[in-house]
């Protein structure tokens, strides 16, 4: 297999980029439709399960007195976690001018938005009285009652609202120039849609200038926001007094876990999109390698934080937490716990080998396994604590019912459906930014090769005074 060492072939014509990406919105491979059908089927399982649960009561989930939370909350955290990579990585990489993010950030951000929308469903599904869900929102009534702002669940509501709004806006703002391209090329309802969404993008310097600042500012705000969101989600547990939950290292642990699962999900979706939409030119193996390396690094951070947690509990004085830890290793859930450690800490070592990194089918499986590990991590946070907490008389081992599994299963269908619909309607590769990437890379390459004077695109007829020296063109001054 030929391995392309470049992130992108800088000789791609800009018009070709437009054509390729626009084509993706029309003619995907048939596998795309298979995936859509699969997602619909999965979603319908969840819908049936949820209707049954709504009518009958939470009892159908097998939840019981010690186990008041289970898969719903675990999966909620999983989806929240998955949402972290897209926006957070996109924002960080944007700030540090890592331009290889450009072909992949759009779908990663879409993944953020949709996994947040999936995550947001879970607290609702999990509520005993969904129809009163709106009581968590601080709205003014004459009854003089408010939500309890002390509750981490209310923080969750605030944080998720903020995060969803911000990351959806970030995704949308970043997409405006591309929407303008779509607008110029679409017909029918799509034309109307893109005309409205592109908000009158003209591509003039005023728009670009404000656009650049806006995008940078939002990126700056999104980084701390994303970190705070998962820290707040971790405080659902860390703020309680339960052993196994009341852990100081939970916020960084959750954030690391979030990035980890997000990166793994990016790999999965990367491979899928690359296949569905013939994106081999843009989603290159070189980029894949970079994500894999990043994922590996985060996996090691996560492993380290795991060990920190074990060590601090092991050498700590809290006997109950220690018992819980031991039971995690040896108790009724130990198989899943070991599986989590295997998937989360051992499997990523495959990422250290270039042979595997560059082999798409392997990476597809590996990324799914990593995400399985991360899902197990959330389950192993939620359930064993409830099974074996302070009061031994109320210990219990509980396995989720088919209703819970059905809804969790269906949530993947829901996410998949949203995501696949999105990539079909919107450009999943940022056209203008790939152009930028190509442009700057070409100039870099040009500057390196300027002695030969062959590929140098820079006009120098009027002397060197008129040479633009923007970002991405270092070293030109000396030429």
């Amino acid at each position, binding site marked *: 297999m030929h391995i392309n060492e470049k992130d992108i072939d800088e000789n791609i014509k800009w018009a070709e980029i437009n054509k390729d990406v626009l084509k993706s919105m029309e003619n995907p491979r048939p596998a795309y439709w298979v995936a859509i059908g699969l997602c619909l089927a999965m979603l319908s399982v969840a819908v049936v399960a949820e209707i049954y649960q709504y009518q009958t009561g939470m009892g159908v989930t097998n939840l019981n007195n010690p186990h008041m939370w289970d898969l719903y909350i675990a999966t909620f955290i999983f989806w929240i976690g998955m949402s972290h990579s897209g926006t957070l990585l996109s924002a960080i990489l944007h700030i540090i001018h890592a331009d290889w993010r450009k072909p992949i950030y759009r779908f990663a951000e879409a993944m953020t938005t949709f996994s947040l929308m999936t995550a947001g469903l879970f607290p609702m599904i999990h509520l005993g009285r969904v129809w009163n869900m709106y009581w968590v929102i601080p709205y003014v009534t004459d009854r003089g*009652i408010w939500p309890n702002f002390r509750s981490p669940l209310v923080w969750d509501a605030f944080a998720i609202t903020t995060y969803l709004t911000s990351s959806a806006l*970030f995704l949308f703002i970043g997409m405006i120039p591309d929407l303008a391209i779509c607008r110029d090329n679409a017909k029918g309802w799509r034309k109307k849609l893109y005309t409205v969404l592109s908000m009158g993008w003209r591509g003039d310097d005023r728009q670009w200038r404000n656009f650049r600042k806006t995008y940078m500012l939002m990126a700056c705000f999104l980084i701390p926001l994303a970190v705070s969101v998962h820290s707040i989600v971790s405080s659902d547990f860390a703020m309680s007094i339960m052993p196994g939950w009341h852990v100081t290292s939970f916020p960084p642990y959750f954030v690391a876990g979030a990035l980890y699962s997000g990166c793994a999900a990016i790999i999965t979706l990367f491979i899928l999109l690359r296949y569905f939409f013939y994106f081999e030119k843009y989603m290159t193996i070189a980029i894949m390698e970079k994500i894999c390396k990043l994922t590996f690094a985060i996996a090691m951070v996560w492993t380290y934080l795991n060990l920190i947690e074990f060590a601090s509990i092991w050498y700590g004085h809290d006997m109950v937490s220690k018992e819980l830890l031991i039971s995690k290793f040896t108790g009724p859930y130990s198989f899943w716990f070991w599986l989590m450690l295997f998937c989360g800490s051992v499997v990523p070592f495959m990422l250290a080998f270039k042979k595997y990194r560059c082999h798409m089918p392997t990476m597809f499986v590996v990324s799914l396994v990593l995400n399985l590990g991360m899902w197990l991590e959330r389950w192993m946070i939620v359930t064993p604590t409830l099974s074996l907490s302070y009061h031994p008389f109320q210990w219990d081992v509980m396995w989720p019912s088919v209703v819970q599994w059905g809804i969790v299963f269906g949530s993947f269908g829901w996410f998949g459906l949203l995501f696949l619909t999105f990539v079909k309607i919107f450009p999943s590769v940022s056209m203008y930014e790939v152009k930028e990437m190509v442009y700057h890379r070409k100039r870099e390459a040009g500057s390196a090769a300027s002695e030969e004077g062959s590929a140098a695109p820079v006009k120098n007829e009027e002397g060197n005074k008129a040479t*633009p020296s923007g970002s991405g063109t270092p070293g030109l001054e000396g030429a």
Partner: protein
Amino acid sequence: MSKCRIMGLFSDFEEAFCAISDIKEGKLSGVSIDDVTLKSPIEHPEIEEVLGERSAPVPYFTLAGAIFGITFGFTFLSSAQANFLVQPQGGKPVVPLPSNIVLTYEMMILFAVLFTVTSLMVCGRFMTKRSSLYSEKVCIDQIGVIVEMDEADLESTKELFKKHKVLEIREEVKQ
């Protein structure tokens, strides 16, 4: 004397850059650099070298949003808590600082982002009608330079454009 606008489409940025440089250097009488607008498929921050630092006040709005978020957030939360009929404090103060700080922080970011986006819409003149000079090619791979000038200078401008290998010149259709 009536004003008119023309747009020249260039195949690459350097040509357009040089053309604008020429305008800046006063090679085109009656046309100042402020009359020039650049249209491009990608962002070209380096154009500021010739166009000068044009204003982009988005950060001020962001700052305002953040400050509003903090004040509104904290005020809203603590007034809600103070007005809570049953005072569910369980031995803790009415206005709990730790949780309010967390929530205020979220409000700060939310409003900062909202203000930023709003200001982009306003400052970037979004949601306005596109002029007839708009060319789809600008969104593909060509650079447009729009110059606004007296009709008298029309020809010299065209000349300048042609000198820089303009591909196409569009004139605004007069109503």
